[in-house]
Protein backbone atom coordinates (compact mmCIF):
# COMPACT_ATOMS: atom_id res chain seq x y z
CA UNK A 1 0.00 0.00 0.00
CA UNK A 2 1.27 3.49 -0.80
CA UNK A 3 1.13 5.48 2.39
CA UNK A 4 1.92 9.07 3.34
CA UNK A 5 2.74 9.89 6.93
CA UNK A 6 1.52 13.48 7.28
CA UNK A 7 3.56 14.79 10.19
CA UNK A 8 6.47 12.49 10.95
CA UNK A 9 6.72 13.36 14.63
CA UNK A 10 6.87 10.60 17.24
CA UNK A 11 3.51 9.00 16.39
CA UNK A 12 3.81 9.39 12.62
CA UNK A 13 7.39 8.20 12.48
CA UNK A 14 6.53 5.19 14.64
CA UNK A 15 3.67 3.91 12.45
CA UNK A 16 5.52 4.82 9.26
CA UNK A 17 8.61 2.92 10.35
CA UNK A 18 6.71 -0.16 11.43
CA UNK A 19 4.61 -0.25 8.23
CA UNK A 20 7.66 0.36 6.02
CA UNK A 21 9.56 -2.42 7.74
CA UNK A 22 6.64 -4.74 7.01
CA UNK A 23 6.97 -3.94 3.29
CA UNK A 24 4.58 -1.04 2.72
CA UNK A 25 5.60 1.87 0.49
CA UNK A 26 5.83 4.73 2.98
CA UNK A 27 6.55 8.44 2.44
CA UNK A 28 7.11 10.92 5.23
CA UNK A 29 6.11 14.56 5.29
CA UNK A 30 8.14 16.57 7.79
CA UNK A 31 9.77 19.95 8.30
CA UNK A 32 12.97 21.63 9.40
CA UNK A 33 15.86 19.85 11.09
CA UNK A 34 14.00 16.58 11.43
CA UNK A 35 13.33 16.47 7.67
CA UNK A 36 16.95 17.27 6.88
CA UNK A 37 18.20 14.58 9.25
CA UNK A 38 15.83 11.93 7.84
CA UNK A 39 16.81 12.78 4.27
CA UNK A 40 20.52 12.60 5.03
CA UNK A 41 20.72 9.78 7.51
CA UNK A 42 17.35 8.04 7.46
CA UNK A 43 15.39 7.22 10.58
CA UNK A 44 17.14 5.64 13.55
CA UNK A 45 14.75 3.73 15.80
CA UNK A 46 15.45 2.84 19.41
CA UNK A 47 12.66 0.60 20.64
CA UNK A 48 11.76 -1.59 23.58
CA UNK A 49 11.24 -4.24 20.90
CA UNK A 50 14.69 -3.86 19.37
CA UNK A 51 16.57 -1.11 17.54
CA UNK A 52 16.73 -0.70 13.76
CA UNK A 53 17.50 1.81 11.04
CA UNK A 54 15.57 2.72 7.87
CA UNK A 55 16.32 4.68 4.75
CA UNK A 56 13.23 6.86 4.24
CA UNK A 57 11.62 8.93 1.49
CA UNK A 58 10.84 12.26 3.07
CA UNK A 59 9.65 15.62 1.81
CA UNK A 60 8.23 18.88 3.07
CA UNK A 61 5.74 18.77 0.19
CA UNK A 62 3.13 16.05 0.49
CA UNK A 63 2.21 16.31 -3.19
CA UNK A 64 5.72 15.29 -4.23
CA UNK A 65 4.95 11.55 -4.24
CA UNK A 66 1.14 11.74 -4.50
CA UNK A 67 -1.32 10.13 -4.94
CA UNK A 68 -1.53 7.90 -1.85
CA UNK A 69 -3.95 5.14 -0.97
CA UNK A 70 -3.67 6.01 2.70
CA UNK A 71 -2.63 9.14 4.52
CA UNK A 72 -1.81 8.71 8.20
CA UNK A 73 -2.68 12.12 9.59
CA UNK A 74 -0.41 12.73 12.58
CA UNK A 75 0.19 16.48 12.85
CA UNK A 76 -0.49 18.34 16.11
CA UNK A 77 -4.15 19.30 16.38
CA UNK A 78 -3.40 23.01 16.23
CA UNK A 79 -2.04 22.37 12.70
CA UNK A 80 -4.94 20.22 11.45
CA UNK A 81 -6.56 22.69 9.09
CA UNK A 82 -3.37 24.03 7.50
CA UNK A 83 -1.96 20.51 7.02
CA UNK A 84 -5.23 19.21 5.58
CA UNK A 85 -5.27 21.98 2.98
CA UNK A 86 -1.81 20.91 1.83
CA UNK A 87 -3.23 17.47 1.11
CA UNK A 88 -5.94 18.51 -1.31
CA UNK A 89 -5.62 16.32 -4.43
CA UNK A 90 -3.14 13.93 -2.77
CA UNK A 91 -5.54 11.03 -2.25
CA UNK A 92 -5.89 8.25 -4.80
CA UNK A 93 -9.38 7.18 -5.89
CA UNK A 94 -10.94 5.33 -2.95
CA UNK A 95 -8.12 6.45 -0.67
CA UNK A 96 -8.54 7.55 2.93
CA UNK A 97 -7.14 10.05 5.42
CA UNK A 98 -6.81 8.30 8.77
CA UNK A 99 -6.33 10.65 11.71
CA UNK A 100 -4.37 9.25 14.64
CA UNK A 101 -4.24 12.63 16.39
CA UNK A 102 -5.20 13.33 19.97
CA UNK A 103 -8.64 14.74 20.62
CA UNK A 104 -12.18 14.15 19.42
CA UNK A 105 -12.64 17.08 17.06
CA UNK A 106 -10.16 16.34 14.26
CA UNK A 107 -12.42 14.04 12.24
CA UNK A 108 -14.98 16.83 11.89
CA UNK A 109 -12.28 19.33 10.91
CA UNK A 110 -10.94 16.95 8.26
CA UNK A 111 -14.46 16.49 6.90
CA UNK A 112 -14.48 20.20 6.09
CA UNK A 113 -11.55 19.68 3.69
CA UNK A 114 -12.20 16.07 2.54
CA UNK A 115 -15.38 14.25 1.65
CA UNK A 116 -16.91 12.47 4.64
CA UNK A 117 -16.25 9.01 3.15
CA UNK A 118 -12.54 9.86 2.70
CA UNK A 119 -12.00 10.35 6.44
CA UNK A 120 -11.24 7.65 9.00
CA UNK A 121 -10.23 7.87 12.63
CA UNK A 122 -8.23 5.98 15.17
CA UNK A 123 -6.13 5.94 18.31
CA UNK A 124 -2.38 5.71 18.45
CA UNK A 125 -1.69 3.75 21.59
CA UNK A 126 2.01 4.29 21.68
CA UNK A 127 4.57 6.10 23.77
CA UNK A 128 7.31 7.50 21.58
CA UNK A 129 9.50 10.54 21.20
CA UNK A 130 11.72 12.22 18.60
CA UNK A 131 14.72 12.59 20.89
CA UNK A 132 16.87 14.39 18.32
CA UNK A 133 16.10 15.05 14.64
CA UNK A 134 16.02 11.75 12.76
CA UNK A 135 15.87 9.60 15.92
CA UNK A 136 12.79 7.89 17.28
CA UNK A 137 12.57 6.47 20.78
CA UNK A 138 9.75 3.97 21.39
CA UNK A 139 8.96 3.52 25.09
CA UNK A 140 5.61 1.75 25.41
CA UNK A 141 2.74 0.13 23.51
CA UNK A 142 2.33 0.50 19.78
CA UNK A 143 -1.11 -0.75 18.80
CA UNK A 144 -3.49 1.39 16.78
CA UNK A 145 -7.26 1.21 16.95
CA UNK A 146 -8.87 2.23 13.67
CA UNK A 147 -12.35 2.56 12.24
CA UNK A 148 -14.67 4.14 9.72
CA UNK A 149 -16.62 7.19 10.88
CA UNK A 150 -19.88 5.29 10.35
CA UNK A 151 -18.55 2.18 12.08
CA UNK A 152 -18.80 -0.11 9.05
CA UNK A 153 -16.26 -2.88 8.71
CA UNK A 154 -15.61 -1.79 5.15
CA UNK A 155 -13.34 -3.59 2.73
CA UNK A 156 -11.01 -0.59 3.06
CA UNK A 157 -10.70 -0.63 6.83
CA UNK A 158 -10.08 -4.39 6.78
CA UNK A 159 -7.33 -3.91 4.19
CA UNK A 160 -5.65 -1.20 6.27
CA UNK A 161 -6.05 -3.35 9.36
CA UNK A 162 -4.27 -6.16 7.54
CA UNK A 163 -1.30 -3.87 6.89
CA UNK A 164 -1.19 -2.79 10.52
CA UNK A 165 -1.48 -6.43 11.61
CA UNK A 166 1.42 -7.45 9.37
CA UNK A 167 3.44 -4.63 10.90
CA UNK A 168 2.59 -5.88 14.38
CA UNK A 169 0.75 -2.72 15.42
CA UNK A 170 -2.96 -3.52 15.09
CA UNK A 171 -5.04 -3.13 18.21
CA UNK A 172 -8.54 -3.50 16.83
CA UNK A 173 -10.95 -2.40 14.15
CA UNK A 174 -13.64 -0.52 16.00
CA UNK A 175 -17.30 -0.09 15.16
CA UNK A 176 -17.58 2.65 17.78
CA UNK A 177 -14.99 5.29 17.02
CA UNK A 178 -16.61 7.78 19.40
CA UNK A 179 -16.13 5.55 22.43
CA UNK A 180 -12.52 4.67 21.73
CA UNK A 181 -11.64 8.30 20.89
CA UNK A 182 -13.10 9.50 24.18
CA UNK A 183 -11.31 6.69 25.97
CA UNK A 184 -8.00 7.88 24.55
CA UNK A 185 -8.92 11.47 25.40
CA UNK A 186 -9.46 10.36 28.99
CA UNK A 187 -5.84 9.20 29.10
CA UNK A 188 -4.62 12.44 27.51
CA UNK A 189 -6.63 14.62 29.88
CA UNK A 190 -5.10 12.89 32.88
CA UNK A 191 -1.49 12.49 31.84
CA UNK A 192 -0.59 15.08 29.17
CA UNK A 193 -1.87 17.86 31.40
CA UNK A 194 -0.50 16.75 34.76
CA UNK A 195 2.89 15.64 33.45
CA UNK A 196 3.41 18.88 31.51
CA UNK A 197 2.45 21.17 34.40
CA UNK A 198 4.32 19.02 36.95
CA UNK A 199 7.28 18.50 34.55
CA UNK A 200 7.25 14.79 35.35
CA UNK A 201 6.92 11.35 33.83
CA UNK A 202 3.67 9.39 34.01
CA UNK A 203 5.33 7.19 36.60
CA UNK A 204 6.24 10.14 38.81
CA UNK A 205 2.70 11.53 38.59
CA UNK A 206 1.18 8.21 39.65
CA UNK A 207 3.76 7.66 42.40
CA UNK A 208 2.57 10.74 44.27
CA UNK A 209 -0.65 10.33 46.27
CA UNK A 210 -1.97 13.78 45.28
CA UNK A 211 -0.77 13.26 41.71
CA UNK A 212 -2.65 10.00 41.22
CA UNK A 213 -5.78 11.50 42.77
CA UNK A 214 -5.66 14.37 40.31
CA UNK A 215 -5.06 12.06 37.34
CA UNK A 216 -8.05 10.01 38.40
CA UNK A 217 -10.21 13.12 38.85
CA UNK A 218 -9.34 14.25 35.31
CA UNK A 219 -10.10 10.77 33.96
CA UNK A 220 -13.48 10.75 35.68
CA UNK A 221 -14.40 14.23 34.47
CA UNK A 222 -13.61 13.08 30.91
CA UNK A 223 -15.80 10.01 31.38
CA UNK A 224 -18.75 12.16 32.48
CA UNK A 225 -18.48 14.43 29.46
CA UNK A 226 -17.73 11.60 27.03
CA UNK A 227 -20.79 9.71 28.25
CA UNK A 228 -22.96 12.78 27.63
CA UNK A 229 -21.49 12.87 24.13
CA UNK A 230 -22.56 9.27 23.55
CA UNK A 231 -19.34 7.41 24.34
CA UNK A 232 -19.88 4.15 26.21
CA UNK A 233 -17.62 4.85 29.16
CA UNK A 234 -17.97 4.08 32.86
CA UNK A 235 -16.29 5.49 35.95
CA UNK A 236 -14.64 2.11 36.51
CA UNK A 237 -12.72 2.61 33.30
CA UNK A 238 -10.82 5.43 34.99
CA UNK A 239 -9.54 3.03 37.64
CA UNK A 240 -8.89 0.31 35.09
CA UNK A 241 -6.81 2.72 33.01
CA UNK A 242 -4.72 3.67 36.05
CA UNK A 243 -4.20 0.02 36.95
CA UNK A 244 -3.15 -0.68 33.39
CA UNK A 245 -0.71 2.24 33.26
CA UNK A 246 0.87 1.07 36.50
CA UNK A 247 1.82 -2.14 34.71
CA UNK A 248 4.01 -0.38 32.15
CA UNK A 249 7.50 -1.74 32.75
CA UNK A 250 9.26 1.61 32.16
CA UNK A 251 6.61 3.96 33.52
CA UNK A 252 9.18 6.31 35.01
CA UNK A 253 10.48 7.17 31.54
CA UNK A 254 7.11 7.53 29.77
CA UNK A 255 6.72 11.23 28.98
CA UNK A 256 3.53 12.44 27.28
CA UNK A 257 3.86 14.31 23.99
CA UNK A 258 2.78 17.63 25.48
CA UNK A 259 5.62 17.48 28.03
CA UNK A 260 8.05 16.64 25.22
CA UNK A 261 6.82 19.65 23.27
CA UNK A 262 7.15 21.88 26.33
CA UNK A 263 10.73 20.79 26.87
CA UNK A 264 11.55 21.49 23.23
CA UNK A 265 9.98 24.95 23.49
CA UNK A 266 7.22 24.01 21.02
CA UNK A 267 3.59 25.08 21.13
CA UNK A 268 1.44 22.89 23.36
CA UNK A 269 -1.37 20.66 22.10
CA UNK A 270 -3.80 21.41 24.91
CA UNK A 271 -6.84 22.79 23.13
CA UNK A 272 -7.61 19.47 21.41
CA UNK A 273 -7.55 17.83 24.84
CA UNK A 274 -8.75 20.08 27.66
CA UNK A 275 -10.39 22.60 25.32
CA UNK A 276 -12.43 19.90 23.58
CA UNK A 277 -13.64 18.53 26.92
CA UNK A 278 -14.59 22.00 28.19
CA UNK A 279 -16.53 22.76 25.01
CA UNK A 280 -18.47 19.50 25.29
CA UNK A 281 -18.95 19.94 29.04
CA UNK A 282 -20.47 23.36 28.42
CA UNK A 283 -22.90 21.95 25.83
CA UNK A 284 -24.15 19.46 28.40
CA UNK A 285 -23.94 21.66 31.48
CA UNK A 286 -21.43 19.42 33.26
CA UNK A 287 -19.05 20.84 35.87
CA UNK A 288 -15.41 19.81 35.30
CA UNK A 289 -13.39 21.94 37.77
CA UNK A 290 -10.08 20.08 37.53
CA UNK A 291 -10.11 20.09 33.72
CA UNK A 292 -11.00 23.77 33.74
CA UNK A 293 -8.04 24.47 36.03
CA UNK A 294 -5.45 22.56 34.02
CA UNK A 295 -6.83 24.08 30.81
CA UNK A 296 -6.29 27.62 32.06
CA UNK A 297 -2.79 26.73 33.29
CA UNK A 298 -1.79 25.13 29.99
CA UNK A 299 -3.21 28.06 28.05
CA UNK A 300 -1.09 30.47 30.12
CA UNK A 301 1.99 28.28 29.78
CA UNK A 302 1.53 27.98 26.02
CA UNK A 303 0.95 31.69 25.47
CA UNK A 304 4.12 32.40 27.45
CA UNK A 305 6.06 30.00 25.19
CA UNK A 306 4.57 31.66 22.11
CA UNK A 307 5.62 35.10 23.33
CA UNK A 308 9.18 33.90 23.81
CA UNK A 309 9.39 32.14 20.45
Amino acid at each position, binding site marked *: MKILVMGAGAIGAFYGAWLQRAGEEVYYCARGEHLRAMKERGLAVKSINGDFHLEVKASSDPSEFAPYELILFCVKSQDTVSAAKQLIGCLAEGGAVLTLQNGVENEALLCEVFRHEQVMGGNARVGAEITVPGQLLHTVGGNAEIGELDGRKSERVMRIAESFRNAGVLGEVTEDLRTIRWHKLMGNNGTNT*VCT*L*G*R*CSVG*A*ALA*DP*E*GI*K*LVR*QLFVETVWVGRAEGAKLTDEQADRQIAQMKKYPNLMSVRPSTLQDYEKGKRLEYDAITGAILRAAKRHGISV*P*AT*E*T*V*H*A*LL*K*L*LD*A*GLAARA
Partner: protein
Amino acid sequence: MKILVMGAGAVGAYFGARLQQAGEEVVFGARGRNLQAMKENGLDLKSPRGDFHAMVRVTDDPREFAPYDLILFTVKMYDTDVAAQSITGCLPPDGAILTLQNGIESESRLQKYFPRDEIMAGCARVGAELIAPGKIVHMTTGVIEFGELDRRETPRTKKIADAFRRAGIFGELTNDIFTFRWSKLLWNSAFNTVTTLTHRTVGGVLGDPEGARLIRTLMDETLAVARADGARLGPDRIEALLEHSRANLRALKTSTQQDFDRGGRLEYDALSGCVVRAAQRLGVDVPAMRTVHALMKLLDENTEAMSSKP
Protein backbone atom coordinates in the same frame (compact mmCIF):
# COMPACT_ATOMS: atom_id res chain seq x y z
CA MET B 1 15.95 45.98 71.59
CA LYS B 2 18.05 42.92 70.82
CA ILE B 3 16.50 41.14 67.88
CA LEU B 4 17.26 37.88 66.10
CA VAL B 5 16.06 37.70 62.51
CA MET B 6 15.78 33.95 62.02
CA GLY B 7 15.98 33.42 58.28
CA ALA B 8 17.72 36.14 56.28
CA GLY B 9 15.89 35.65 53.00
CA ALA B 10 14.26 38.58 51.23
CA VAL B 11 11.63 39.17 53.94
CA GLY B 12 13.88 38.71 56.97
CA ALA B 13 16.76 40.67 55.52
CA TYR B 14 14.56 43.62 54.62
CA PHE B 15 13.02 44.01 58.06
CA GLY B 16 16.32 43.26 59.80
CA ALA B 17 18.09 45.91 57.75
CA ARG B 18 15.49 48.55 58.62
CA LEU B 19 15.61 47.67 62.32
CA GLN B 20 19.41 47.84 62.41
CA GLN B 21 19.29 51.13 60.52
CA ALA B 22 16.97 52.49 63.22
CA GLY B 23 19.47 51.56 65.91
CA GLU B 24 18.23 48.21 67.16
CA GLU B 25 20.76 45.51 67.96
CA VAL B 26 20.10 42.94 65.20
CA VAL B 27 21.55 39.47 64.68
CA PHE B 28 20.80 37.59 61.48
CA GLY B 29 20.44 33.80 61.39
CA ALA B 30 21.50 32.51 57.95
CA ARG B 31 23.09 29.54 56.22
CA GLY B 32 25.30 28.56 53.33
CA ARG B 33 26.30 31.07 50.71
CA ASN B 34 24.03 33.74 52.14
CA LEU B 35 25.79 33.44 55.53
CA GLN B 36 29.20 33.60 53.88
CA ALA B 37 28.35 36.65 51.76
CA MET B 38 26.79 38.56 54.66
CA LYS B 39 29.78 37.79 56.90
CA GLU B 40 32.25 39.03 54.32
CA ASN B 41 30.41 41.92 52.66
CA GLY B 42 27.53 42.77 54.94
CA LEU B 43 24.01 43.29 53.74
CA ASP B 44 23.22 45.23 50.60
CA LEU B 45 19.69 46.57 50.22
CA LYS B 46 18.44 48.52 47.21
CA SER B 47 15.12 50.18 47.89
CA PRO B 48 12.91 52.98 46.61
CA ARG B 49 12.75 54.08 50.27
CA GLY B 50 16.51 54.44 50.46
CA ASP B 51 19.39 52.02 50.09
CA PHE B 52 21.13 50.40 53.03
CA HIS B 53 24.56 48.88 53.08
CA ALA B 54 26.28 47.88 56.31
CA MET B 55 28.21 45.13 57.99
CA VAL B 56 25.89 42.89 60.00
CA ARG B 57 26.13 40.37 62.78
CA VAL B 58 25.27 37.04 61.17
CA THR B 59 25.49 33.45 62.40
CA ASP B 60 24.40 29.91 61.66
CA ASP B 61 24.27 29.27 65.40
CA PRO B 62 21.85 31.81 66.93
CA ARG B 63 22.63 30.56 70.48
CA GLU B 64 25.99 32.27 70.07
CA PHE B 65 24.48 35.73 70.73
CA ALA B 66 21.45 34.75 72.84
CA PRO B 67 19.34 35.84 74.63
CA TYR B 68 17.13 38.02 72.40
CA ASP B 69 14.23 40.24 73.38
CA LEU B 70 12.55 39.41 70.10
CA ILE B 71 12.95 36.74 67.47
CA LEU B 72 11.48 37.51 64.04
CA PHE B 73 10.82 34.07 62.59
CA THR B 74 11.09 34.38 58.81
CA VAL B 75 12.25 30.99 57.50
CA LYS B 76 10.27 29.15 54.82
CA MET B 77 7.64 26.81 56.25
CA TYR B 78 9.53 23.70 55.18
CA ASP B 79 12.51 24.79 57.35
CA THR B 80 10.37 25.43 60.44
CA ASP B 81 11.41 22.45 62.54
CA VAL B 82 15.15 22.69 61.93
CA ALA B 83 15.14 26.45 62.52
CA ALA B 84 12.98 26.24 65.65
CA GLN B 85 15.23 23.58 67.16
CA SER B 86 18.23 25.85 66.73
CA ILE B 87 16.71 28.70 68.75
CA THR B 88 15.10 26.98 71.73
CA GLY B 89 16.37 28.53 74.95
CA CYS B 90 17.27 31.79 73.21
CA LEU B 91 14.46 33.85 74.77
CA PRO B 92 14.63 35.56 78.17
CA PRO B 93 11.54 35.26 80.46
CA ASP B 94 9.71 38.18 78.84
CA GLY B 95 10.96 37.59 75.28
CA ALA B 96 8.81 36.75 72.27
CA ILE B 97 9.07 34.91 68.98
CA LEU B 98 7.05 36.67 66.32
CA THR B 99 6.42 34.44 63.33
CA LEU B 100 5.92 36.01 59.92
CA GLN B 101 5.61 32.73 58.07
CA ASN B 102 3.00 32.22 55.38
CA GLY B 103 -0.20 30.29 56.02
CA ILE B 104 -2.04 29.78 59.27
CA GLU B 105 -0.16 26.77 60.61
CA SER B 106 3.05 28.36 61.81
CA GLU B 107 1.89 29.03 65.40
CA SER B 108 0.84 25.45 66.05
CA ARG B 109 4.08 24.15 64.57
CA LEU B 110 6.10 26.47 66.87
CA GLN B 111 4.18 25.34 69.94
CA LYS B 112 6.17 22.12 69.79
CA TYR B 113 9.25 24.17 70.73
CA PHE B 114 7.98 27.24 72.62
CA PRO B 115 5.34 27.84 75.26
CA ARG B 116 2.28 29.42 73.71
CA ASP B 117 2.68 32.72 75.57
CA GLU B 118 6.10 33.26 73.99
CA ILE B 119 4.64 33.09 70.49
CA MET B 120 3.25 36.08 68.65
CA ALA B 121 1.74 36.09 65.18
CA GLY B 122 2.46 38.51 62.37
CA CYS B 123 1.95 39.05 58.72
CA ALA B 124 4.70 40.41 56.46
CA ARG B 125 3.70 42.72 53.64
CA VAL B 126 6.75 43.27 51.53
CA GLY B 127 7.74 42.83 47.91
CA ALA B 128 11.44 42.03 47.90
CA GLU B 129 13.82 39.65 46.23
CA LEU B 130 17.09 38.07 47.24
CA ILE B 131 18.92 38.62 43.95
CA ALA B 132 22.26 37.22 45.12
CA PRO B 133 23.67 36.08 48.48
CA GLY B 134 23.58 39.11 50.77
CA LYS B 135 21.88 41.31 48.16
CA ILE B 136 18.24 42.34 48.47
CA VAL B 137 16.13 44.39 46.12
CA HIS B 138 13.08 45.93 47.74
CA MET B 139 10.20 46.79 45.41
CA THR B 140 7.01 47.53 47.29
CA THR B 141 5.37 48.01 50.73
CA GLY B 142 7.38 46.77 53.70
CA VAL B 143 5.32 46.55 56.87
CA ILE B 144 4.43 44.04 59.56
CA GLU B 145 0.97 43.52 61.00
CA PHE B 146 1.05 41.62 64.26
CA GLY B 147 -0.57 40.79 67.56
CA GLU B 148 -0.74 38.41 70.50
CA LEU B 149 -2.30 34.96 70.00
CA ASP B 150 -4.76 35.69 72.84
CA ARG B 151 -5.58 39.03 71.17
CA ARG B 152 -4.57 41.12 74.22
CA GLU B 153 -2.54 44.28 74.08
CA THR B 154 0.52 43.69 76.26
CA PRO B 155 3.59 45.70 77.29
CA ARG B 156 5.66 43.79 74.77
CA THR B 157 3.31 44.46 71.85
CA LYS B 158 3.68 48.15 72.59
CA LYS B 159 7.45 47.92 72.84
CA ILE B 160 7.69 46.02 69.55
CA ALA B 161 5.28 48.41 67.85
CA ASP B 162 7.49 51.32 68.92
CA ALA B 163 10.60 49.64 67.51
CA PHE B 164 8.78 48.88 64.24
CA ARG B 165 7.55 52.46 64.03
CA ARG B 166 11.06 53.82 64.47
CA ALA B 167 12.22 51.51 61.67
CA GLY B 168 9.33 52.48 59.38
CA ILE B 169 8.01 48.94 59.19
CA PHE B 170 4.97 49.23 61.42
CA GLY B 171 1.79 48.09 59.71
CA GLU B 172 -0.84 47.49 62.32
CA LEU B 173 -1.24 46.12 65.83
CA THR B 174 -4.22 43.83 65.57
CA ASN B 175 -6.30 41.53 67.74
CA ASP B 176 -7.30 39.58 64.64
CA ILE B 177 -4.06 38.54 62.98
CA PHE B 178 -5.62 35.47 61.35
CA THR B 179 -7.85 37.64 59.22
CA PHE B 180 -4.67 39.33 57.96
CA ARG B 181 -3.02 35.98 57.37
CA TRP B 182 -6.03 34.68 55.44
CA SER B 183 -6.13 37.87 53.45
CA LYS B 184 -2.49 37.38 52.46
CA LEU B 185 -3.16 33.71 51.75
CA LEU B 186 -6.05 34.73 49.54
CA TRP B 187 -3.54 36.37 47.23
CA ASN B 188 -0.54 34.06 47.67
CA SER B 189 -2.29 30.75 47.31
CA ALA B 190 -3.68 31.86 43.95
CA PHE B 191 -0.91 33.95 42.41
CA ASN B 192 2.20 32.18 43.73
CA THR B 193 0.95 28.82 42.46
CA VAL B 194 -0.39 29.93 39.08
CA THR B 195 2.60 32.13 38.18
CA THR B 196 5.02 29.35 39.11
CA LEU B 197 3.19 26.67 37.14
CA THR B 198 2.94 28.88 34.05
CA HIS B 199 6.09 31.08 34.21
CA ARG B 200 3.92 34.16 33.79
CA THR B 201 3.93 37.42 35.68
CA VAL B 202 0.91 38.60 37.65
CA GLY B 203 -0.02 40.85 34.73
CA GLY B 204 0.40 38.03 32.23
CA VAL B 205 -2.00 35.83 34.17
CA LEU B 206 -4.60 38.56 34.65
CA GLY B 207 -4.36 39.59 31.00
CA ASP B 208 -5.66 36.21 29.88
CA PRO B 209 -9.41 35.71 30.35
CA GLU B 210 -9.03 32.08 31.43
CA GLY B 211 -6.12 33.04 33.69
CA ALA B 212 -8.14 35.80 35.35
CA ARG B 213 -11.07 33.42 35.80
CA LEU B 214 -8.84 30.77 37.37
CA ILE B 215 -7.40 33.31 39.84
CA ARG B 216 -10.91 34.35 40.80
CA THR B 217 -12.02 30.73 41.24
CA LEU B 218 -9.04 30.02 43.48
CA MET B 219 -9.71 33.16 45.51
CA ASP B 220 -13.40 32.29 45.85
CA GLU B 221 -12.46 28.86 47.17
CA THR B 222 -9.92 30.26 49.64
CA LEU B 223 -12.38 32.90 50.81
CA ALA B 224 -14.97 30.23 51.57
CA VAL B 225 -12.41 28.38 53.67
CA ALA B 226 -11.22 31.56 55.40
CA ARG B 227 -14.76 32.51 56.36
CA ALA B 228 -15.46 29.02 57.63
CA ASP B 229 -12.30 29.43 59.75
CA GLY B 230 -13.64 32.67 61.23
CA ALA B 231 -11.74 35.24 59.18
CA ARG B 232 -13.62 38.52 58.79
CA LEU B 233 -13.31 38.77 55.03
CA GLY B 234 -15.92 39.29 52.33
CA PRO B 235 -15.99 39.15 48.54
CA ASP B 236 -15.03 42.84 48.46
CA ARG B 237 -11.57 41.75 49.64
CA ILE B 238 -11.13 39.75 46.41
CA GLU B 239 -12.15 42.73 44.31
CA ALA B 240 -9.69 44.94 46.17
CA LEU B 241 -6.85 42.43 45.73
CA LEU B 242 -7.54 42.03 42.02
CA GLU B 243 -7.76 45.78 41.55
CA HIS B 244 -4.48 46.30 43.41
CA SER B 245 -2.82 43.51 41.38
CA ARG B 246 -3.94 44.98 38.08
CA ALA B 247 -2.88 48.48 39.06
CA ASN B 248 0.41 47.88 40.85
CA LEU B 249 1.70 44.33 40.55
CA ARG B 250 1.64 43.55 36.83
CA ALA B 251 5.39 43.02 36.52
CA LEU B 252 5.73 41.18 39.84
CA LYS B 253 7.46 37.83 39.95
CA THR B 254 6.13 36.00 43.01
CA SER B 255 8.51 34.60 45.62
CA THR B 256 7.64 31.02 44.71
CA GLN B 257 8.41 31.77 41.08
CA GLN B 258 11.74 33.29 42.17
CA ASP B 259 12.48 30.09 44.08
CA PHE B 260 11.64 28.01 41.03
CA ASP B 261 13.89 30.08 38.77
CA ARG B 262 16.74 29.68 41.25
CA GLY B 263 16.17 25.91 41.27
CA GLY B 264 15.20 26.12 44.91
CA ARG B 265 12.60 24.30 46.91
CA LEU B 266 9.07 25.62 46.43
CA GLU B 267 7.07 26.97 49.37
CA TYR B 268 3.71 25.73 48.10
CA ASP B 269 2.68 23.64 51.07
CA ALA B 270 2.24 26.71 53.30
CA LEU B 271 0.02 28.21 50.58
CA SER B 272 -2.12 25.78 48.56
CA GLY B 273 -1.44 22.99 51.07
CA CYS B 274 -2.60 25.15 53.96
CA VAL B 275 -5.85 26.02 52.15
CA VAL B 276 -6.50 22.39 51.16
CA ARG B 277 -5.93 21.12 54.71
CA ALA B 278 -8.11 23.82 56.27
CA ALA B 279 -10.78 23.10 53.64
CA GLN B 280 -10.77 19.44 54.57
CA ARG B 281 -10.94 20.22 58.29
CA LEU B 282 -13.85 22.61 57.74
CA GLY B 283 -15.70 20.58 55.09
CA VAL B 284 -15.34 23.06 52.22
CA ASP B 285 -14.87 21.81 48.65
CA VAL B 286 -11.91 23.41 46.84
CA PRO B 287 -11.48 21.48 43.56
CA ALA B 288 -9.38 24.09 41.73
CA MET B 289 -7.05 24.61 44.71
CA ARG B 290 -6.68 20.84 45.09
CA THR B 291 -5.66 20.70 41.45
CA VAL B 292 -3.00 23.41 41.62
CA HIS B 293 -1.76 21.98 44.92
CA ALA B 294 -1.18 18.53 43.40
CA LEU B 295 0.58 20.14 40.42
CA MET B 296 2.82 22.26 42.68
CA LYS B 297 3.71 19.16 44.66
CA LEU B 298 4.71 17.30 41.48
CA LEU B 299 6.62 20.31 40.19
CA ASP B 300 8.53 20.61 43.46
CA GLU B 301 9.32 16.90 43.65
CA ASN B 302 10.41 16.65 40.05
CA THR B 303 12.52 19.76 39.76
CA GLU B 304 14.23 19.12 43.07
CA ALA B 305 16.42 16.46 41.53
CA MET B 306 17.85 18.91 39.02
CA SER B 307 18.33 21.82 41.38
CA SER B 308 21.56 23.02 42.88
CA LYS B 309 20.33 23.59 46.39
CA PRO B 310 22.29 22.17 49.32
